[in-house]
Every structure is written in structure tokens, then in C-alpha cells.
């Protein structure tokens, strides 16, 4: 009964003919989470003929009928089960980096889709700190190309920092903050280019889904795309493909148990749906719940942690922003929120830190912006009201910078019980403090962006320090003694347990993570097909 009740499809995914497995079936693979890590795995495995059941904690959404152009209303797309944030520079969760619903946090991702910088994958080799990825950029290139082609990434060809790169669609139009960044960096003699964006700049036909319509520049990417698949979220890309190939998605299904057989292999997954526990038998499981929920589930179940590394090495990007007021109207809610990029700061010559950062313009819708002003700039009273009155004249610019892993930055179970469904799981407690490297990088970026903003004509310029994305916590690496999974995402302890999400990243990489998560998901799924069923 449980499985049926939870499988109530809707939305853009043509799921009326969705396959339905029985809980007594021993399915080939259970995938936990339907975001950037899970959706490509589902499509790849289902297309190879495997029986795939995906368990998604969130609900089905029908964007056309349900999404509103409203930030408060759309906060339902965020993962709102409480997380506890500690450390010197506690990082924000919820809307900052975590989502829920069929499609995961990709429902509200910004679709900023740069590839990782080759040097970021081997930071330890180059600079002696952090950890290298146990794979090379050459391993990733064909996967990146495949993902970009399938998703219809829009961007400039040639790409200034990688002339060989070809994007399937031309760039997305620049809005006012992007123009200001272009102006500001030009004055500083620093190159910029339209950014790689996983939203389609023209009609795009895609297997498993109807024709995707070009982005109309509504500016609400972070609140869910309502416009007929313009933005490449999972529900209009990998999930339709997976369903067409026979995968099943069960929504409102929160996984809280994993059962092993006598040989120490996963034989079933336990999830709560409509207040009842359901047990799905399976031959293998892919955990794709993100860098907070994946380690939380492993710590809760006590599995796959002989290395003691589950939850360790939590990282978040240095995502400092600079804001300013311009004389002409900016109306930064209009157009794609971030449509420009510079990769010139990936290894700045005057850097007093290792690694580097990307810079992007920021168009932020008013409530999110006002919250930042009240919390981050600390304004209140008439100063606050007067400043918010300038909304139509304000524009921002932000960095996304590498972050090193540190022993004191980790996720653990808090001891405080989460009320969800009466399951009794503990809320996660995340410790996060910038080290010297992050602080220096933030200062470097703030200085550069302030100069660019002033050169672009901004006044009343201020800096907002923040961190973004959740990375690390189940590191991949060759040595089973110090890593949770191998170079393909397979657990060193439980051979039929795999992880595909950004918990496996040994390093944060300066690039926004989603494109790399999808590329690595394809790599994991193919490795599973090649070797995993032995």
C-alpha cells in the first residue's frame, strides 16, 4: 500500500505511465534523492535496463499550476527541516543551498554551470594543502560535454578560458548587473564573458521531454522555473528520461533505514511515507541526498564509516558579495540572475592564498535581498527603510571561491530530535569556520569586486560575507582507511552502497558544483553497470 500511496506523480514529468514496482520485488537499485546526484544515475541505470526505484523526501510539483512569482511562497522548495549551524562562520542552510521535492535542490538552483578548473582537481599536488580528486580533468571532459549537450547549456563559443569548448546554445542575454560587471572589469583590464548557463537561450528538443522553451528572463530561477522547462532542472531533463526508461519515483518518502544481509550487503531500504514505514528490497543503493542528508543517514544507520570520515571535511564556498547603488535604474529582478563570468581569478598573481575564485553578477529578488541587508549589513530603522527604497537602483556582484577542508569543519548528529514524521532522527549539527585561506580569499575578492563596482559607477558600496553550497562529508579516495567511497563513489565498506552527490568531493573546487555532480553521477552509474553488480 505504502509504495502506491507515495507514487502520485504530477508536474512536467509525463509520469502517468510511470512504472510501479512492488516492495516485495528485489529491485536492482534504490536511489535516495532525485537531484543532481540522483537523477542522472536513475536515467543511466534505467536506460541500461535495470529496475530503478527512486525515493524522494519531497513532493511532486507542477510548476505551471503551482509555482508563484513569490519568494516566501516558494520557500517550500527549500529543505526546511532544521539544521544547526555552529563554528566561527556558521553557514546558512535552507534557501541558501538545500532543496526538496522531486528534482531536489535543482528545482531552485541558479543554473550557473561552469566546469571545474583542471588545477582545482589537484590542489594538493600543486600547493600541498587540501586533497586531490582521485581522477583527472581528462576523465571529466567527455562527461561534461555529454551533460552540457543533453541539458542544453547556453554559453559563448569559443569559451575564453578553454578555447576548445563548444556550448550547444548561444549565451543568455545580459541584464543590468551583468552589464555593470562587464563595465567594471573592463575598466580594471580583466576579461569577462557570458557565463555557461543551464537554461536554454533558444528552443531545445530533448529526449523524454517536450520541447523546452527559451528563457524569458523572469528572474525567479531560485524560486523554481515556471516557464516550460527553460531552466534545466531535473524534472525537465534527467527525470523524464529515467521515467521513460522505466524508473519509478516515490515522492514524500523519507529514507531512515538501510538493512544489510548476512554478508554485510544492503538488502533493503526503509522509508517513511504517509506516517508508515515501508521496506523496499533491493540489490544496491545509491545515496544521492546531498552533503548533509547523505552523511546524516549514514551516521544514523552507522553504516559505511570504518574510516571514521563520514561527516568530516565539510566545506562551503567563499561566496562574498559586494553591493552598490547606481544612478540609472537596474531593476535587478529582471533577466537571468547571473549571466556573466570571469575565470581570471582562478589563480590571481597577487594571491596570498591557494586556489582561486569565479566572479559573477547578482540579480537578487527583493525579499532575499532585504533579508541580507537586515542580517548582513545590520541596517534597521529608517536607514533600513530608506536603503530598501533604492531597490530598483541596486546591483550586486559575487564570488564563488574554493574552500579547504579542516579537521574542525564537520557534520555530526546533534542529539536533538527532528520532529519529521515521528521518525526520531537527530538534527544535523554542522561546524564551519573559515581558515586563514578562506578569509584571505574573501578579502581579496571583496577588494577586487569593490574596485570593479566603483569603476562601474556604484556608490554606497558594501560587502556581505557569506558562504554557499554544501560540499564534502563522504570523501572519495583510493585509500579505504581515510575515505568513505572509492574514486567512483562506491563505499569501501559496503560494496553495494554507492554515493553520488557533492558529499564525495575531496575538494570544494571554485566552480559551482551542480555540473560536476551530474558528470560524476554519470561516471558512477557507468562504473556500477560495468562492475557493481558482481
Amino acid at each position, binding site marked *: 500500500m505504502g509504495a502506491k500511496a507515495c507514487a502520485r506523480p504530477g508536474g512536467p514529468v509525463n509520469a502517468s505511465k510511470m512504472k510501479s514496482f512492488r516492495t516485495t520485488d528485489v529491485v536492482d537499485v534504490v536511489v535516495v534523492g532525485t537531484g543532481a546526484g540522483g537523477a542522472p544515475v536513475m536515467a543511466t541505470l534505467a536506460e541500461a535496463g535495470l529496475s530503478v526505484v527512486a525515493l524522494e523526501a519531497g513532493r511532486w510539483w507542477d510548476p505551471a499550476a503551482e*509555482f*508563484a*512569482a513569490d519568494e516566501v511562497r516558494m520557500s517550500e522548495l527549500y529543505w526546511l527541516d532544521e539544521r544547526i*549551524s555552529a563554528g566561527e562562520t556558521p553557514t546558512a542552510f535552507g534557501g541558501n543551498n538545500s532543496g526538496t521535492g522531486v528534482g531536489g535542490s535543482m528545482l531552485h538552483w541558479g543554473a550557473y554551470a561552469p566546469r571545474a578548473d583542471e588545477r582545482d582537481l589537484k590542489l594538493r599536488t600543486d600547493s600541498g594543502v587540501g586533497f586531490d580528486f582521485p581522477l583527472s580533468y581528462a576523465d571529466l571532459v567527455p562527461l561534461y560535454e555529454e551533460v552540457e549537450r543533453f541539458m542544453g547549456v547556453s554559453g559563448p563559443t569559443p569559451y575564453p578560458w578553454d578555447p576548445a569548448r563548444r556550448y550547444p546554445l548561444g549565451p543568455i542575454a545580459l541584464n*543590468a548587473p551583468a552589464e555593470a560587471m562587464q563595465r567594471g572589469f573592463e575598466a580594471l583590464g580583466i576579461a569577462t564573458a557570458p557565463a555557461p548557463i543551464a537554461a536554454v537561450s533558444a528552443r531545445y528538443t530533448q529526449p523524454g521531454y517536450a520541447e523546452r522553451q527559451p528563457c*524569458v528572463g523572469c528572474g525567479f530561477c531560485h524560486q523554481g522555473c515556471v*516557464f516550460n522547462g527553460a531552466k534545466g532542472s531535473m524534472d525537465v531533463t534527467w527525470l523524464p528520461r529515467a521515467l521513460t526508461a522505466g524508473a519509478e519515483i516515490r515522492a514524500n518518502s523519507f529514507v531512515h533505514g538501510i538493512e544489510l544481509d548476512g554478508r554485510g550487503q544492503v538488502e533493503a531500504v526503509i522509508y517513511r511515507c504517509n506516517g508508515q514505514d515501508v521496506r523496499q528490497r533491493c540489490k544496491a543503493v545509491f545515496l544521492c541526498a546531498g552533503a548533509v542528508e547523505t552523511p546524516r543517514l549514514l551516521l544514523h544507520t552507522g553504516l559505511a564509516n570504518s574510516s571514521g570520515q563520514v561527516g568530516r571535511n565539510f566545506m562551503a564556498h567563499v561566496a562574498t558579495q559586494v553591493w552598490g547603488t547606481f544612478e540609472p535604474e537596474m531593476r535587478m529582478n*529582471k533577466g537571468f540572475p547571473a549571466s556573466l563570468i570571469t575565470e581570471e581569478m582562478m589563480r590571481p598573481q597577487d594571491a596570498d592564498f591557494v586556489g582561486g575564485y569565479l566572479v559573477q553578477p547578482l540579480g537578487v529578488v527583493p*525579499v532575499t535581498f532585504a533579508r541580507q541587508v537586515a542580517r548582513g549589513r545590520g541596517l*534597521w530603522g529608517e536607514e533600513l527603510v530608506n536603503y530598501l527604497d533604492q531597490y530598483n537602483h541596486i546591483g550586486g556582484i559575487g564570488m564563488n571561491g574554493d574552500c579547504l577542508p579542516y579537521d574542525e569543519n564537520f557534520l555530526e548528529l546533534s542529539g536533538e530530535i527532528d520532529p519529521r514524521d515521528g521518525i526520531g532522527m537527530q538534527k544535523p549539527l554542522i561546524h564551519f569556520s573559515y581558515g586563514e585561506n578562506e578569509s584571505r580569499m574573501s578579502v581579496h575578492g571583496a577588494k577586487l569586486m569593490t574596485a570593479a563596482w566603483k569603476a562601474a559607477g556604484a556608490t554606497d558600496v558594501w560587502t556581505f560575507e557569506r558562504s554557499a553550497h554544501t560540499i564534502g562529508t563522504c570523501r572519495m579516495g583510493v585509500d579505504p582507511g581515510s575515505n568513505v567511497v572509492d574514486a567512483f563513489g562506491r563505499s569501501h565498506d559496503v560494496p553495494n552502497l554507492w554515493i553520488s552527490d557533492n558529499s564525495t568531493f575531496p575538494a570544494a573546487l571554485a566552480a559551482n558544483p551542480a555540473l560536476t555532480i551530474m558528470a560524476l553521477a554519470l561516471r558512477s552509474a557507468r562504473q556500477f553497470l560495468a562492475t557493481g553488480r558482481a
Partner: protein
Amino acid sequence: MLHAVVKGTGRPGDVSLVLMHFLGGSGREWDEVIALLEKDYRTIALDMPGFGGSAEMPGYSVEQMADAVESLVGSLRLGRYVLVGHSMSGKVAAVVARRFADRMKGSASDGQGTGPGSIHAERLDGLKGLILIAPSPPEPEPMGEEKRTNMLAALGEEKHGDRARARAYITKNEERDIAPEVLERAVNEVLKMKRAAWVAWLERGSKEDWAERVGILDLPALVVAGDKDRSLGPEQQRATTMKHLAHAELRIVPGCSHLVPMERPGELAGMLREFVDGLGTANTSVPAEYRLLIDSDRVSPQTRAVLEERMAGPRSTTVLDAMQILTLRAVCERLVPQRAGSEIDLAGTIAARLASGKGDGWRYAVLPEDSDAYRHALNKLAESGFERMSDEAKDECLRELTQNKASAEARWFEELRGDATTAYMSHPATYARIGYSGIGVGGANTPQQGFVAISTGEVEPWEPKPAQDRVVR
């Protein structure tokens, strides 16, 4: 300041009731009525100079009583309210209403701005109606000299048998139908009164002639009288009080005498409720032009539904108690100053969010769960008397919270700023104020979609312009 008991919270934009009492009584005469109203309304039951909790206060003339009422009302910053006068205080209420009417006429030509700076001018506009219960009229009260002499002799001077005489005064020799416990309480209140106040009213206040000064008041009014009231019943009211009110209804309570609040609390509470509800809730002033945008096909039905719900205001909840809500409201007033009478209900929105149990997905480790963090912090502010502080003292008190950035106090204050600003910024009134066009992007199934003109300085013809001039830093 007059002694006053504040009950209930109401919501910004709602009408508060300022309840005043008869000669020899106190705010306690309203206890039963308040119990029926406090869930939905903010009530302020005050004691006039020389009576109840204000027994030690001097100033018994009509003029002085009006001063005292005005000063109390001003200090409470009620927003919209009605004055409810009973018998003696009915005369005072009419005088206060006249003063406010005159001042409004004076300030109307001052060219009021709409920015935070004009908040104080706006406060004059708070009086929305007048309710008079068996009032002593603006003109000298019709009272025989014999009755006056008997009353003067009956009470006030300490002498044996006071309690019996006080009881007789309240019950009028069993003519009045008052519950025993209410009667005992009323007798106790009579015995608290200063004789000087009693004498002042009987010998002078009741005889003062304010008829010409009060003139005709054109605010909404309700006059209530018991048909057994021989001195200030329906006939006397028609002949006197009603002539001063341009828009008044006279309602008669059958079988009731002069002490309506204690004799017929249920009926009277119903009448007050009806009158106040008829005044409506203050609109949080979403300008007509912006409403047209909301109703246009630029806004998707889903978006419109959200905006309409928000304009209707938050539902009241019980997650915070009255004192906590009042404190939260006082804090929000400092965080996000707004025009009095057209405020967005920031505190109510926060309380509704807390009651829903929905947070923003995380909290600082130094804080407990949201509702507990709020209760704890608001209780501390309430203990320090935050609500009654001057604006400067309030700001100082809030600044102190931020001293140690990583402390629980500072983190809570950061959360609060975020919550209050979210409630403010997400309201259509603010969208209109800043000229925000994002609601107009349409939806998947609407004819208008997204933006075409997105370059610097480009504005599409339909995009709203700010309703508020920018104050450039």
C-alpha cells in the same frame, strides 16, 4: 499618567477600545465586557483622576479629565481606536473627540508627507469613533438639586456604614440587576474614590456647559441607554447628546438601568463588537495603481492568490502571549518604521510563522528553537519595560543586543531583523512603494511572460514606478 489596564492585542489596523467609567466607578466596571472582547480586540480600561487606581491623581474638572485621557491615549500609541465613555466620562469623551476633530482640521492643511518622519502627525488620526453609554451630555446634566444634595451627603466622607451606602448607590435599592460578585467588586471600587472627586463632579463637572464647544461631531458614534434609566435614559439622550452627533445611532437596552456594562455585559459587548467591526480594518494602503497591476494578466493566478492572502493579513495565533506580542510589535516599530494606521502587521506575520512551525531550515547553534528563542528574548525585553521606553531608549536597548556578535542575543536579533524585514519586504504595499515589477512576470499559462527590456535603465511601459521618493545616502 492615569492608571489603565491593557488587555488583548488585536492587530495593527484593528480598532482598540478605550473604556471609561461612571462617577464612583473605575475601569473594573468593564471586566465582564472585556472578558468577552479581549480575544479579538485590544482594550484599555482606565481610571479617571480621583477614582480606582488613579485615586491619588488630582484634576477633576472636565477639562483636566480630558487632558489626562488624551495624554494616556497618546502614550499608548494605539493607532486606530474608539473612545467609550459611560455616564460621567461620556461628557469627557465628547470633549476629547472635539479636540481631535479640531486638530485634524488644522493639520490637514500642513501637507503631510508619507515618510517615516510624518508618523507623529499621523497619530492624531487615530480616533475612529465614539461610543457613549448613558452619557452625561455636553450641556449641564439634568439633575434635581435634591438628588444632588442627597448624593453629596451619601458618600465619600469616611463614616460608619459607608459600605451599605455604596451598595445602595450601585444597586439603587435593588432596582438594578447586577451579579453578586460584580456588585461586591463595584462597591469596593466606590470605596476607593476620593471624596473631592465625587464632590467636584456633582457640584461642578456635571454642571459645566460644553454644548457650544463640542458642537456637532461628525465621526461615527453609538449611544446606548437602558430603558429603565430615569435620569440619562433614551428620552434624555434624544434631547441632549444625540444633537451633538452627526452620525449616531441610539440603541436601547430593554429592562436595563444606568450601569449597562455591569447589568448587561453580554448585550453591550455585542454592540461594541458590531460598531467596531463596522469601522473595518485599516487597509495597509496598497495604492490603486499597484492593485490594478495585481489584477492584470501580467500576474499569474498563483501569484495573485499569494498576494491577496498577504494583503488580508496574518491570522492571529497563540504562540506568543499578549505581552510578548506587544513587545514584539514595539521592537518591529523600531526596526521597520511605518506610517501609523497603515502598518503591515510585521509582528503578526512573525507570530504566524512561528505558529506554523516552519523555519528557514536552520538556526545558529547558540539559539534554541525559534519559538523558544523569541519567547525568551521578548520576555527579557518586556521585563526591562521596553514597550514603555522612549524611542531613543528602545534603540539603545536594541543596540546593546548586538554588542557581542556571536552571542545568543545578537544572533536572535539578527534572526528578528531578517524575519521583520521579510514580512515588510514581501508585502504588496512595499512592492508598490519601491516600484517592484517582479510580480508581473506572468506564468506558464499566462499571455505575458518575463521581461524583454532588461538592460540598464530600460523600463517596460507597464512596470510600476516607485511610490516613494528615494532618500539617497
